[in-house]
């Protein structure tokens, strides 16, 4: 027996509702996006955060030992924070590079989560650099 | 090097321009109209033919599904009836169209 009103519309409406529901559920429990902070914003956000900035030397220590130590500066600014990092160091890591990592501020030093360091790849498509 | 490249470029350009102008060069008479595709009668007939083919294909597929065991005997009998009806309707619509067409041609010829 053919239905007069197509159930297709009902299916679509219910599906959209279901997707939105799943979405809301996910974001309220797991929280999809992590705020990415600059060193100047660290003081206002205690706890586990994602930090982005530019590496400033000197770089010392052993990431596979006691920890790699360097300073991270705001990409557009002057605020800095000392960082100690353990874990794998990407090949592109060096002073001047933009990086981001997770961790938390402890006693004025940003202690990074192990293996969380990510560098921005140097530009493939960049305009000519002088 | 410069002269050779320039010559090559010029030659290529001429060849390409000729290629683009080819339709006009081959057929200078301005019988410029396209095909008679925008014949609404043909378009309607095509759509009816497509409906007929869809109905026939659906029957064929039902039969195959039944033979491979995807559709049970009871379901087969139930689904067969509306499909047969649709195929018959499509064929009938085509015949009516055809008859109408013949009628029009006869009228035109007579007048």
């Amino acid at each position, binding site marked *: 027996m053919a239905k007069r009103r197509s159930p297709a519309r009902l299916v679509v409406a219910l599906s959209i509702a279901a997707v939105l529901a799943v979405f809301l559920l996910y974001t309220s429990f797991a929280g999809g996006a992590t*705020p990415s902070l600059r060193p100047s914003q660290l003081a206002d956000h205690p706890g586990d955060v994602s930090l982005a900035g530019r590496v400033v030397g000197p770089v010392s220590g052993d990431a596979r030992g006691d920890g790699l130590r360097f300073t991270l500066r705001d990409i557009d600014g002057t605020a800095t924070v000392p960082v100690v990092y353990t874990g794998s160091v990407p090949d592109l890591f060096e002073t001047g590079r933009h990086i981001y990592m997770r961790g938390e501020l402890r006693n004025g030093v940003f202690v990074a989560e192990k293996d969380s360091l990510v560098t921005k790849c140097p530009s493939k498509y960049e305009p000519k650099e002088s | 090097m410069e002269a050779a490249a320039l010559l090559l470029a010029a030659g290529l350009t001429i060849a390409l321009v000729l290629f683009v102008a080819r339709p006009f060069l081959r057929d200078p008479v301005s019988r410029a109209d396209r095909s008679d595709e925008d014949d609404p009668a043909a378009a309607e007939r095509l759509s009816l033919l497509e409906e007929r083919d869809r109905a026939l294909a659906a029957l064929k597929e039902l039969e195959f599904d039944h033979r491979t065991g995807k559709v049970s005997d009871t379901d087969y009998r139930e689904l067969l009836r509306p499909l047969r009806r649709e195929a018959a309707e499509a064929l009938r619509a085509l015949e009516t169209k055809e008859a109408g067409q013949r009628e029009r041609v006869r009228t035109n010829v007579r007048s």
Partner: protein
Amino acid sequence: MPELGRAALVAALGLILYAALAGGYAAFCRRRRLLDSAANALLAGFAATGVASLVLFAALAGRDFTFEYVARGTSRELPMGYTLAAFWSGQAGSLLLWLLVLTGSASAAVALNRGLVRDVLPWTVPILGAVAAFFAILLVFVASPFATQAAPADGAGMTPSLQNPYMMIHPPMLYLGFVGLTIPFAFAMAALASKRMDERWIVATRRWTLAAWTFLGFGILLGAKWAYEEVGWGGWYAWDPVENAALMPWLVATAFLHSVMVQEKKNMLRVWNVVLVAGAFGLSLFGTFLTRSGVINSIHSFTQSSIGPWFLGFIAVVAAASIALILVRLPSLRSRTRLESLVSREAAFLYNNLFLVALALTVLWGVVYPLVSEAVRGVAVTVGAPYYDFFAVVFGLPLVLLMGIGPLVAWRRASLRALGVSLLWPAGVALVAGALLLALGAGSSPAGLVGYTFGSFVLAAIVLEFARGTRARKALGGGGWLASFAGLVGRNRRRYGGYLVHAAIVLLLVGAVGIGGFSTTTEARLAPGESLEVGGYRLQLLGSDQRRGANAEELRADLAVFREDEQVGTVSAGKNRYLAEQQTSNEVAIRTDWLRGEDLFVIGDQFNEDGSVFLKVLVNPLVNLIWLAGLVFVGGSLVAMWPDAREQRRLAGRLALARA
């Protein structure tokens, strides 16, 4: 020489603009010769772009550093293969590759479908011309590969992670996919423009979409293999925005390939199909915008470049024009047929589409959200793998299940009882497989276990389909099993090719779950002579040394691999320091054990002054099934794509009958 290149591009632009403008006029005023001429202009545009491409290849091969582009992307010591691949390693060159592939595909589409384009879909020519014109304008005015300079002593070299054989094939494959989606878009819009929405545009569109979709899927897997081997973090897909840029149009195209079958059988979902085709094309443009504009943080990230606003503008124009055209034609597009039952093959396709589109939108949101957040709230955010993994599971698992149920449910209306009977055998197999895997310890990853159970269900359903079909055919026509099988597949290539593709997806699932859910890892600092153990292997550091490669200093740690106290081989892992580029890259060692179906993945993380090496070693089970899946995927697609002479005859015959 650069003048020849520049001139060729200007000529290409002129020809393509002619194709767009004259083609538009010809389509509007129904002028046959002008339309033919415009179509020829597309082919001529391809020739001109080809000349420009040859100029660039010649400059690369000759290491001509007076070309800025060559100097920026190569160096004297760079091996010739990579030097030639540098064609598409930068902005301008990759745009040229895009234009080359676009004009090439457009030419093929128009040439192979001359009759269709001339009589039914004249607007195809101006639409293709307009899209190509955009890229030609960029190449001539904004980003030219033919800028010159005083030649430096040596070039800057190629980014180390690009110095990999995959660089030679991954971008062209990917572009054939991305760019290929322009063709079905043009056909669909042309059909709307001239109100010719009969079956012919569907057949043409479907085949091109299948081809582009195959290239795109294969290109994505090539990229994944590259990431696995070259970037070398141990994984194969990072949900990086640029990876997602290729995935989104692929998902939407997959949805289209399924829903188009509903349109063919029931003349339903016509508006939806046009929206999907336009959406896939729009997403491919959006994807390339993301990759080039520097707007997104990604491992492929590029600095802010002036190309971004151009792309955004173009995407806006394309979106507006498509939406307008669809709305105008909405009355004639609306289908009169209705969905009869929620338990039917049509409904299964509808569910499949909903999940695929939901997944595509989820990925899109994940990519776009950081931009939106920064622009609106001023808060920078990053969306990581957990977000994507969650939705991949939530939307992906039902999709896998549908791959098994769909083929087994009848069209129109299926009684639940009949469906239950059909599903009994595959479901039984799946439960047994699931129980077995649980006993083997697969319960450590619940999502993985469910995935494997569903996958077994799908494979059983596919085997059932092939078996029942062959048996029915044999009963009909006699002949042996093999002949019946060949006949079965030959007569219904799309269906059985499609089943092979489904099998490929299951293989991919098995591999992905294997490496994602069941891999083991160990890291340790080893002095020469010391060992570490992981997943049943013991690796002993023999020593490390430095060798001079073609254009790099190669630092390697040599390790002996033992299994159950017997040496089975050696591996060397470490880093390359590239001299011209002054950059280091990770060179992992991968030892594949085909019998055990696993990869031993060794990363030489840190080389210390005292001769000790810090190593990270992973054992990745079943990962090679992912690459095997790629091959099965292409094979299945080829079967599905194979031209069917009988269908061509039927279409031609029907047309002749209509015209009579």
